[in-house]
C-alpha cells in the first residue's frame, strides 16, 4: 500500500494539512497526489534528491508561491 511505502521511507501523516511529510528530507506529498499517482511514481519521487534547505512539495497542481510560503511557515 502507498501509505506503507511512505511510512517505511520515514514520512509521517500531518492531519492538519493532509500531507505526508519527511522533515529530514524536507519533502511533502499531498493526499491528493498520493491517491492519484501510481505506486511506481510515488517510489520514484521518494527517491528523488531533496532541495537542500528548501521544502519540496509533490502536489497534483504545482503550489503557487503564497501556498508554498504558508506551508513552509507551518512545517518549519
Amino acid at each position, binding site marked *: 500500500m502507498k*501509505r506503507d511505502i511512505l511510512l517505511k521511507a520515514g514520512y509521517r*501523516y500531518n*492531519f*492538519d*494539512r*493532509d*500531507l505526508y511529510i519527511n522533515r529530514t528530507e524536507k519533502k*511533502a506529498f*499531498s*493526499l*491528493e*497526489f498520493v491517491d492519484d499517482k501510481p505506486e511506481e511514481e510515488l517510489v520514484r519521487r521518494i527517491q528523488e534528491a531533496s532541495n537542500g534547505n528548501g521544502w519540496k*512539495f509533490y*502536489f*497534483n*497542481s504545482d*503550489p*503557487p*508561491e*503564497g*501556498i508554498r*510560503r*504558508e*506551508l513552509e511557515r*507551518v512545517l518549519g
Partner: protein
Amino acid sequence: MPERMIEDMLRAEYFSLLPEIRKVVWQLETEIRYETLSILHSLNHYEQLIVKSRVKDCESAIRALQRRQEGRVFNSDRPEEYSLLTLPDLAGVRVLIFPRSRVVEVDGRLKGRFAGWTPDPVRDEGGIALALKYIGYCSGVSGKVRGEYQVVPMLVGLFWEVEHSAMYKPDPSLRGIGTSTQMKMLKADVEDALKRFETGFESFVTETS
C-alpha cells in the same frame, strides 16, 4: 494577506450571506414538505418520512473550503480566489425515509419540482450510491446561494448524523480518525448491515402482505 486574514474575510462574507442562506433553507424545506405531504399522509404505520434542514455554520464552511485546497491552506497572495459561494451546501435539507422502497417515490416527486437541479449522489468507497443528492438555485429566492437536498434511507441517514460529528468534527485527541482505514472499513460494514436490514424488512413485508 496572511491566511488568518483570509479566514476573517470569509467570516465577514458568511455573515453577509447568512440572511440569504436562511431564506434558501426555509424555501427549500417548505417546498419539500409541501411536495412530500401526500406521501407522508399515505405512509403505513411502520413507515417514516422526516424532513430536516440546516444552515451550515461559519467555521464548518471555512474548513470545508480549506479542505478543497491541496495542503489545506489558502493562497495568501490570492484572497480574491476564495468565496464561500463555491460551496454547494450552505443551505441543506435532508429527507429521511424508511423503508428504502419509498425513496424512489419521494425522489421522483422532488425531481419533478426541482427539475434542472444537478444530481450528485453520495457514493460509498466502491462507487455504489448510498443516497441521492441534488444541488441548485431556488428561483426567486437567491441567485447566489445554492441549495442542496438529499433523499436518504433513514437508517443510513441517522447513522451519518452520529458518525459525521464523531469522525469529521472530532475531539483533538481523535485527530486522524476520519482518514483511518480501519474506521472506514467499519463504517462500510455498518452501512452494509443497515442496507441488508432494510432489504430484509422489505422482503418480509412483501411476503406477508
